[in-house]
């Protein structure tokens, strides 16, 4: 294993490693030989799997991005930066980046806002709230592929549920299958519908761990509901919001199943193609694994940068 990009060093499998260690755990007796070997034995299988199937491909992916590999041939010729130059220059890149942005911003923003709203609602003392909590969370455990297929029929412009409901109020159904904008809308709504339960449940858990007395005190001081929400509740939820903004972002950027079963990246070629879907299409459909690896590398760098910005932002917020 060479040094990895993200993390300073990957430890070598034989973790009986070098003694100079400046880790957080207080340096009591640093264990005995048998304890070291037992630890190595217990950790080794998992470490080997993570190194072989997570870290190795991460690096290998970067190497492949500088080749013209076609996924089946044993030969991959180095092509320098030409994949990157191609990606930055191609017309469809703009559309695909825009799709990814729209999808990600919409899914992260809406599922966090609505999830928080629902958590606030179902934290109230209302009868039957436990059943509603379960209902909201249920779609999250269902397979994305199954939901994607089912919602393809829900959005069917001829015989679907949405068409039927719209017809009842006298509105014609948009063609979710053929119009790129509406197709992206359909995929986004389906994803939010499935994943809302996650943000909801995390926010609910955070609400239940909050300091109710602060809210009471603010209320006695005459603060309005809005002020209490902004000045008392939101600051307490900040770590949760931060955690969700990262995890929800990572999972929405990665969405593959719903797009693959609903639209295959179409209509009109790339109407709902996101970066992840482009990786799949270039690599496995167009057999341009080198170019696919380039897109994957670009995506990883963007994700890393966004995460770093988020962490910075969080740190600054903490000090303020």
């Amino acid at each position: 294993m060479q040094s990895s990009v993200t993390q300073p060093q990957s430890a070598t499998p034989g973790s009986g490693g070098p003694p100079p260690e400046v880790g957080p755990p207080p340096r009591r007796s640093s264990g005995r030989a048998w304890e070291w070997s037992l630890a190595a034995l217990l950790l080794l299988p998992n470490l080997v799997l993570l190194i072989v199937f997570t870290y190795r491909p991460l690096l290998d992916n970067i190497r492949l991005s500088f080749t013209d590999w076609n996924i089946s041939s044993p030969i991959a010729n180095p092509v320098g930066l030409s994949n990157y130059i191609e990606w930055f220059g191609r017309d469809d890149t703009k559309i695909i980046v825009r799709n990814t942005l729209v999808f990600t911003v919409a899914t992260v923003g809406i599922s966090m806002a609505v999830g928080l709203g629902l958590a606030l609602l179902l934290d109230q003392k209302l009868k039957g709230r436990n059943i509603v909590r379960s209902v909201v969370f249920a779609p999250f455990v269902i397979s994305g592929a199954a939901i994607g297929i089912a919602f393809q029929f829900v959005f069917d412009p001829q015989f679907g549920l949405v068409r039927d409901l719209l017809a009842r109020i006298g509105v014609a159904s948009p063609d979710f299958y053929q119009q790129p904008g509406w197709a992206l809308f359909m995929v986004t709504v389906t994803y939010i519908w499935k994943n809302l339960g996650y943000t909801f449940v995390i926010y609910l858990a955070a609400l239940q761990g909050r300091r109710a007395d602060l809210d009471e005190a603010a209320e006695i001081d005459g603060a309005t509901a809005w002020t209490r929400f902004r000045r008392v509740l939101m600051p307490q939820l900040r770590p949760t919001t931060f955690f969700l903004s990262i995890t929800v972002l990572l999972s929405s950027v990665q969405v593959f199943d719903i797009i693959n079963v609903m639209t295959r990246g179409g209509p009109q070629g790339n109407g709902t193609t996101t970066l992840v879907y482009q990786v799949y299409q270039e690599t496995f459909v167009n057999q341009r694994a080198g170019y696919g690896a380039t897109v994957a590398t670009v995506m990883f760098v963007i994700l890393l940068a966004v995460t770093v910005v988020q962490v910075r932002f969080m740190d600054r917020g903490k000090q303020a």
Partner: protein
Amino acid sequence: MSTSTIVGTRDDEQVPPAGGQRRRRRTSHQVEASAHHRGPMWTVAGYAGMVLVVLVIAVPLFWILLTSFKERGDIYVRPAQWWPDPPTGQNYSELTTRIPFFDYVRNSVIITSATSVAKIVLGVISAYALSLLRFPGRSIVFLVVIAALMVPNQITVISNYALVAQLGWRNTFQGIIIPLAGVAFGTFLMRNQFLSLPGEIIEAARLDGAGPMKLLWRVVMPMSWPTLVAFALITVVNEWNEYLWPFLMSDDETTAPLPVGLTFLQNNDGVTNWGPVMAGTVLAMLPILVLFLFLQRQMIKGLTAGAVKS
């Protein structure tokens, strides 16, 4: 950490389903007061909101379920006919004749159980080494495990595909299972659990001469069942729903799990025959929904455990 409180309590007001163990101390009176002293308007709005949410989630599911029992003619009509008249099971029988449905179910069971067992065992033993054994480089090893969470699967897929294809493992179970078996989140979850155990009990067991494996089995695990159950449940759900990797690895019913099999059904003809397809999705959703119905508290606990504390 009093994990046991979440499980098995039925009292609606006292114990919310999620994250109960991290609630600060306060009386239920303080928390629950809000809805009341905001007056009846708020209460009405609250119930209206609840009804709306239930409709948005349940109506599509109900529509799918109804469709799966409709005769072909009843699906392709406008305006839509909501109730199957008469209800028919023909979509379900057509489903099993048009695709080898039970082969997919079998594959799903094999892949889910093997991957889950591997992940649970590896997660527990890694977490044990990382929390209760002392060895040099422990925090670095932990970092290596945890940082894997930040690497999206989609980025590793190209190179892993090449590796597995080279080994001749495409369309085999080991080709699907082994690359999925490394565990980062579960290690993190179980390590936190083990670190939360009272040190005196562990020390006492050590002084009594319990070896490390005996310590794990007889002392550490019995105090960690709720967390392990939560970890196991979210692992099973994730593996059952896993799509991208098995989709790339399997070409047919010899290894394809259910979600991938459904995609094959969808591909069969140009115009989708929705009846059997809806029957297939219903059957794919059902086992997980049933599992969820009975064990949702433990499932939610697994998801929230890593989140709220940080």
